Every structure is written in C-alpha cells, then in structure tokens.
C-alpha cells in the first residue's frame, strides 16, 4: 500500500494556453495510505484522466506522481503495483470462480497455501464461497462483476486498488449490497481504494473523502457531511443533493445585504466581504412562513409536489425559482400563495466568485 501524491497537470493537446485546454488543471493532492477516496463529477470533469494518471495508463503532460515519496511518473501499472476494476467484468469465462480469484496471485508466484487462504477470505467477504467451483461462464453479469471486484481486492501487497464506475452493470436493487461489501472490505483489508463515479450516492457512501471535480478542477475534497453542509464551491452545492442548493444573487455593503430590491441587516452576525455575493441555501434548510419579518423575502408558491416522504415546494422570487423541502406533517401552502422565505440561518453559505466565503 502507498501514499499517493500528485503534483501535476494534464492537457491532451500540446502547448495549452487557456484553462479550457487542460483536461486536468494544475493541482497538488495527497491520497493517504489506507484511505477510501472517490473522484466525483459529471462526464468530462477530468476524473477518469486523474485515475488513469494514478494507475500509470496515462502520463501527465507536466508534473509528477509519487508513491510513498518515490517518483513513479513514468512507471507502468504493473511496476506501480496497481490493481484495477473496470465498468465491465474482466474475467476468464472458462475458469472457475476460485481460479479467477487466484489468477492475480498465481501470476505473482504467491505460495499455494497463501493463495488458498486469501481466495477463501475474499470469496467469503463477497458471499461467493458456495460458488467457488462454478465456471464463471454460467454466472449472471452482476456475479461476474463481483468476481472482478474480488480479483481487484485479492492481493494484499498492492499500492492501491482503483475502481472505474464498477457498479454500472449491477442491478439497482443489488447495488446497495455491493456498496456495503466494498465498505466492509475497506474496513477489514485497509487497502488504499480510489473510486471514480458520476453518482453521488456511490461516492458519498463509499468514500471517507470525496474529491468533487468540474471542468478539470478539484473544487472540494472532504467527507460527505462537509460537502452537504459547507460546499466550498457553488458547483458542489449544486451537484451534491437532489435537488441541489438554491442560489440567490446578493450584494453586501456596510452590514446591509441587498437581495433583489430588499435590504436585510446582517451587521450583527456575519463578517462578509463587501460587493457582489451569491447566497446559497439548501432546500432542506429553506424555511417558509406565512407572515413576513424584516429578514424574510416574499415569494409566490408555484408548485407543491408530494414526493412521498416529504413535500417539495417551488417558490418564485423575481425570476428565480427556489425549492424548499417540507415535512409532510407541516401545513402545506397552495400554489399562488404568498410565502415569506427565511434565507438567513446557520446553514446559509455565501460565495464570492463561486468560492465559499469562510
């Protein structure tokens, strides 16, 4: 296992000039030994580029990759001792489950007794012990992918195990079981695991630390709670949560916060920089009340949706639509009602040029 340090940038074209020319903008990042990490972002954000640079499938156009302080930038995945699991099963159909799991160990000339012990342990963790003698060819797609996961995890001496959207072929109803397995396996084996996905559930559930990426930039690295409570960048507020954070343009001057054409006194509580700001508040924290106060904003109710476990209220404020999530036990407003939005609270975040004001 290894501590992985990146200090690099990558552009697929020569002589990058502008930010858009980079697949990965210059960054420095450290993945601690034994940690569970996820790289999360929409397609094209640079997460797969970063993964391929760590594995050695791709050489960065500038900078270095270090494993435990050793420069491995020009080494292959084999030389770096990296195990990988891909979107689709990579296994030998003609071999049994046990032979498939043993293959990476046999290749490395691990003693037979050790192979048997390790294969048995991994099979037990993945609940495949009863299938060890079955041919892989006869198994379903998700069983095959479980074997791929097992093959990735079977070696105890790897620097890191890298996963590239490994649950794509898994039936939605089985996904949570495999997420649980991966989490348990991480606790037991203490391998360095790095997991690429565009799915927030997978990233937040799996990882201790999530790297949120957009347009070639890592905009926040942190645990799920920080990404939800204190998004460091407006993109994180938007991308984490369903629906994401509400944003309101605001302007701060001498303790007065101007939102649309209303002024709210913020001199008492917050230290905000002067000038244009963006106020961010999650639908879970936006409070609606029937009566207005000096620090509320009047808005019109556009829609009230019964989402089963809660109500989603869409309000119109100027030309902005804001979402509020309400308990089903609360008295629901009706479309057309005027409500008063409490946008300032402990959970409200402010952004200056997309970056959180600390």
């Amino acid at each position, binding site marked *: 296992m290894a501590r992985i340090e990146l200090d690099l940038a990558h552009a697929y074209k020569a002589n990058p000039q502008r930010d858009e020319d980079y697949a990965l903008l210059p960054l420095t990042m450290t993945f601690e030994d034994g940690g569970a990490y996820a790289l999360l972002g929409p397609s094209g954000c640079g997460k797969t580029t970063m993964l391929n640079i760590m594995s050695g499938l791709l050489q960065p156009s500038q900078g270095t990759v270090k494993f435990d302080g050793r420069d491995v930038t020009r080494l292959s995945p084999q030389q770096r001792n990296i195990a990988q699991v891909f979107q689709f099963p990579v296994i030998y159909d003609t071999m049994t489950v046990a032979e498939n799991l043993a293959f990476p160990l046999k290749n490395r000339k691990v003693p037979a007794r050790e192979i048997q012990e390790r294969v048995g342990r991994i099979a037990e963790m993945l609940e495949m012990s009863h299938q060890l003698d079955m041919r892989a060819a006869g198994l379903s797609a998700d069983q095959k992918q479980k074997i791929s996961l097992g093959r990735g995890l079977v070696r105890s001496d790897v620097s890191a195990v890298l996963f590239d959207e490994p649950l794509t072929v898994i039936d939605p109803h089985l996904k949570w079981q495999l997420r649980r397995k991966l989490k348990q396996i991480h606790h037991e084996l203490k391998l360095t695991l790095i997991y690429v996905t565009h799915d927030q559930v997978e990233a*937040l559930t799996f990882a201790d630390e999530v790297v949120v990426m957009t347009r070639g930039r890592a905009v926040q690295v942190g645990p799920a709670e920080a990404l939800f409570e204190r998004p460091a960048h407006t993109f994180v507020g938007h991308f984490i949560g369903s629906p994401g954070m509400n944003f309101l343009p605001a302007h701060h001057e001498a303790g007065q916060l101007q939102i649309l054409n209303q002024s709210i006194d913020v001199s008492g509580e917050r230290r905000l920089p002067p000038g244009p700001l963006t106020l961010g508040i999650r639908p879970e924290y936006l409070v609606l009340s029937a009566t207005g106060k000096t620090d509320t904003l009047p808005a019109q109710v556009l829609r009230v949706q019964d*989402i089963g476990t809660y109500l*989603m209220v869409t309000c119109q404020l100027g030309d902005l639509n804001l979402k509020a999530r309400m308990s089903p036990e609360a008295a629901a407003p009706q479309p057309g009602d005027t409500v008063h939005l409490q946008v300032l609270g402990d959970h409200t975040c402010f952004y200056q040029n997309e970056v959180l004001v600390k």
Partner: protein
Amino acid sequence: MQLSLEHVGKTVGPSVHLYPQSLNLVPGAVTVLLGATQAGKTSLMRIMAGLDVASTGRVLVDGADVTRVPVRQRNVAMVYQQFVNYPSMTVAQNIASPMRLRGDRDTGQKVRELAARLHIEMFLDRLPAELSGGQQQRVALARALAKRAPLMLLDEPLVNLDYKLREELREELTQLFASGDSTVVYATTEPGEALLLGGYTAVMDAGELLQYGPTAEVFHAPQSIRVARAFSDPPMNLMQAEVAEGGVQLAGGAMWPLTLPSGAPRKLTLGVRAGGLRVQARTGDVSLPGRVELAEIAGSDTFVHVHTAVGELVAQLTGVHDCPLGDPITLYLNPESLFVFDAAGPLVRAPARPGKVA
C-alpha cells in the same frame, strides 16, 4: 384524447408478456407506467403505439377501435431510452421534420420556440453527433413535441443521463406536460420519478397491471404488498405480525398498540417506508433496537440499513449522518404510521395522510 385498453394481453410463443388488463388513461394528463425491468411496460407501450398488435383485447382511441391500425396511421409521438435523431440532419432540421411531414411551411419560428423551451437554441445548426447525451435527448424530445401528437409515449427517456441532467430535464418535462395538450404515457422503474412527475400512476409487475390512480393516492394507499414493493425505493420495510388484543404482536416478540379495522385477518404483514422510521423518539413511538449494517448517503438523505430482531430495516434520515458500520442504533416509529396488509397480500389499513396536498 381518450386512450382505452380493454382486456389487452400479449403472449409470445409460450410466454405471457402481458396478462389481460384494462386501463382508461386520463385524457390530457401524464400516466406513469411504474415497474421493474420485465414488468411489461415496454410491451404495453408498443401496443398503445400500434407497433405491436395485442394477442387479446382491444385498443380504443376516443371510442374508435384502433387495435389493428399500424403506427404509421396513428398520430403518436415516441421517445426512447436511446437518443434517436436523424444523424445527417442538423438539430433544426431534426426538430422541423415532423412539421414538414404534416405540411407546415413556415417552420423556422416554431423550431426556434421549441428549441428555446428545451434550451438547445444555440445548437440549431449543429449535427446531433456534435452534442452531449443530454443535449441529444433534448433534440429527440423537441422533435416529439413538434409532432403535436395527441398521444405521447416516453419509454424511460432519462435513464441514460446522469442524475443532475435527469433532475433538470424531468422538471422541464413536467412543465411541458402540464399544458394538457397531449395524453402522455411515461415509463419508469423509479418510484421517485413517478412522484416527481405527479399525474396518474399505473403500477405494473410481472406482466400484470396492479393498480391505477392519482400518483400520490397510489403511493399512500397501495392496494397490495406487491404495489407497495414496486412503489417504494428503498423497498418498503415489511414485518410479520398477528392480531392481538389492542394491537399487533410482532414475530420478533414486541406488542404494538394499533387500531385495526374490524374483520382484519389474523396473519398480517406490517409495512413502513424508510421515511417513516426515525432516530429520535416522539410521543407514542415504539422502538426497534438494532445494529448499523451500512449508511448509504444520497446527498440530501442518508439511508441507514439496520439489522433488528424483526429483520433488516432501512431508515431514511434527512441530511448527512455518520453511522459507522456495526454501531448500535435504535429506530423509532409511530404504529399509526404503519401500513397493514393481509399476509396474503391485500391492504387492510393505510396510515392517515397529515399533509395531504389538494
């Protein structure tokens, strides 16, 4: 447009794809076909469209029998999972094609309006292959809307997009459907999507139509365990119990107070959705001690899988919660919030809905 199915069934060789079912779709509204893969949603839609002929029964449009009328002679717009556009035509030509077929001359203005509604007006001169998946599906949707067909069929149109795009497009579609110009049928595997679309929902399972009604009503009063299963994500928590003096006796030992309707069967299955379980007790709650199996974090919610004496339960908690694997945890619920089913399947009692939306 009134679309009616009368005892429509479909068999292919020896296998039954659809059991005979009748359905009168509410005109000018959205009907969601909700069910897992293989439930029969696509088979039913193909019969509605005229792509396939039913083995039994009749399809009526505004009272006229169209069972054997092929798709070309019906006025139907369809959108599929894959983004189907004419690859050699520009976006503008793609959107204009149904208008041209209809004999419209002056299409330019209408194309621009539709493109603006779907936020693709800046791509009108590009070819579909130059666009991202989400943009291509927007083009397919614009083309379907351009047809102005009285019946619009959408077969999991958002399934191939990532969740943020799905959120965005679903919201836009809900607003487009609200005009009431077309009768819309929308197939999905996701209960959450059905709730967000609103309208009416037909729940399907293994080739059978189980229940049809206003979406929120079906959700809050599923007529059977099968409907409850299909219309809950994560699956509804189910517990076996028997009628006892003043309440129910759980198979796990506890006795819970609960008012049951007279004539309730002795053997019961109790159901509670993940959102009905909480970690802070309120007055009248009963408790379920257990152990954390996994906390899945979905951005705005945490789904905690808990091992308890009455089986494995899943609780949905708002926000991000850190629940380490193996930690003790106690779940609470109010027995009045329980769904009670006859253990054989039919609903005996649904909980009252406090925050009912008119």
